């Protein structure tokens, strides 16, 4: 069984991915509802891995729910909570159950989350995780031992086009490409001119770039992200545009902006696709796609 997501990437079409966060608890209804909502509209559904270092139902469990629904899962895997043995074991299990795509992340720091006294592991980093997957694909584990049955994943990573300073991030981006990252989902981008500059650089590398689209749900959120979230820059015009509408219409405005951004990226063929992050507003993703004309 090959990765349908990889087939979509290789087909040259404008690829759409989105993400769903597992619940804090065992009630999976909401997550399953979001999966149902998205599975036929996107080429892959990312399942987050204890996003923002808040403990939740595992990414792997969410990915199995995606597969059970007939969707295509992209397993997010951070290095924060598991040492190399646990990561490798989870990769073997994920592969055996049909997961075919992995997004490799270093992971947020433990103290920003909800288990502030927990040990951050970081035995591997995102780059070493890419290499570990490559190693497992070659039939060996990181201890140099032969596997009885290898893995075959489409593996990706993230990059932050608006990082300040940018060059250290780009060096790491290049190392990830060298390690075999077949796709990148970027941190949220809002300024298309800045993103064009990034793509002029990134296009030189043999990998696919999916631009990160984070739904703006209010003017306050837009201001907060610009001020507080590393690598996110919302231009003042967009903040003004959000502020100009009544509070109850802000979400619709955010959907319109996200749709408009996606349409512009697609029209100008700026990148290989988009990764839509609606962060708690997954219900709006079909509307965003409709607004984008997709």
């Amino acid at each position: 069984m090959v990765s349908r997501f990889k087939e979509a990437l290789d087909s040259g079409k404008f690829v759409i991915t989105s993400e769903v966060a597992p619940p804090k608890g065992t009630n999976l209804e909401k997550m399953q509802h979001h999966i149902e909502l998205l599975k036929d509209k996107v080429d892959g559904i990312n399942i987050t891995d204890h996003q923002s270092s808040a403990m939740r139902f595992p990414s792997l469990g969410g990915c199995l729910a995606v597969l059970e629904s007939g969707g295509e899962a992209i397993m997010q895997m951070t290095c924060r909570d598991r040492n190399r043995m646990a990561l490798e074991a989870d990769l073997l299990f994920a592969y055996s159950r049909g997961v075919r795509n992995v997004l490799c992340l270093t992971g947020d720091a433990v103290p920003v989350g909800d288990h502030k006294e927990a040990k951050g592991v970081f035995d591997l980093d995102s780059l070493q995780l890419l290499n570990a997957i490559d190693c497992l694909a070659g039939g060996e584990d990181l201890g140099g031992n032969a596997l009885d049955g290898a893995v075959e994943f489409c593996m990706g990573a993230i990059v932050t086009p608006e990082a300040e300073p940018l060059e250290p991030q780009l060096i790491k981006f290049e190392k990830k490409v060298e390690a075999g990252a077949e796709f990148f989902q970027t941190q949220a981008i809002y300024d298309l001119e800045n993103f064009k500059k990034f793509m002029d650089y990134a296009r030189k590398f043999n990998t696919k770039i999916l631009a990160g689209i984070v739904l703006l749900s209010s003017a306050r959120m837009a201001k907060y992200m610009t001020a507080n979230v590393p690598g996110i820059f919302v231009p003042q015009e967009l903040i003004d545009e959000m502020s100009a509408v009544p509070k109850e219409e802000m979400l619709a405005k955010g959907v319109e902006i996200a749709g408009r951004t996606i349409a512009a990226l697609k029209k100008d063929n700026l990148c290989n696709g988009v990764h839509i992050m609606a962060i708690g507003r997954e219900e709006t993703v079909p509307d965003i796609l409709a607004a984008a004309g997709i």
Partner: protein
Amino acid sequence: MKSMTKQKPIEEIQQSLESLDKVFIVGCGTCTTLTNTGGVEQVDEMKDKLQEMGKWLTGAVVIPTACDDMTDVAMKENEQAIRSADCLLSMSCALGVHRMSLYLDIPVIPAVDTLFIGVEETPGLFREACAQCGQCLLGITAGVCPITACHKSLVNGPCGGTNNGKCEVDSEKDCAWTLIYNRLKEQNRLHLMHQYQPPRNHHITLQPKSMKIS
């Protein structure tokens, strides 16, 4: 280089001293004197606190250095007062607690927590400079240690949490990889940052660590 410490909450000290009524206090004239956690003044304050708790002080001393072989001599000089105590309350760092425990049969109770071995960068500002990982990378990181200076001890470049040269866990903390990048750039050695660093060996010196010098 100093062993950096902070005093434990008095409630915790009191709990540790439960059923240990006769106490001998030892401060240290080196690191805890410098950090104001176990010098003459803090030992005097501790005497008062212990008396308020109803403890009986058999004595108190600030020895020059609690972690070297002179500790034994200092212990002998105070032998009688120490012998008549139920325990020794140490206001030295953990190295001193360990050393004193080698010489004494009575419990040695730490009154401070040992945080890290710090190097004074600017007056009064101490930073952990070395985690003694056994795999020194300073030659390729322009003298900035990614193990101690990066919250996640990353060896292949910055994470996505870096922001304007600061760290995601604390906007007052510098991002180690921004520092490394800037210094390597100045040295015209940025190619070093492009090198892939493999996963670290966490057992270069097998825990528990020791080394015999012949």
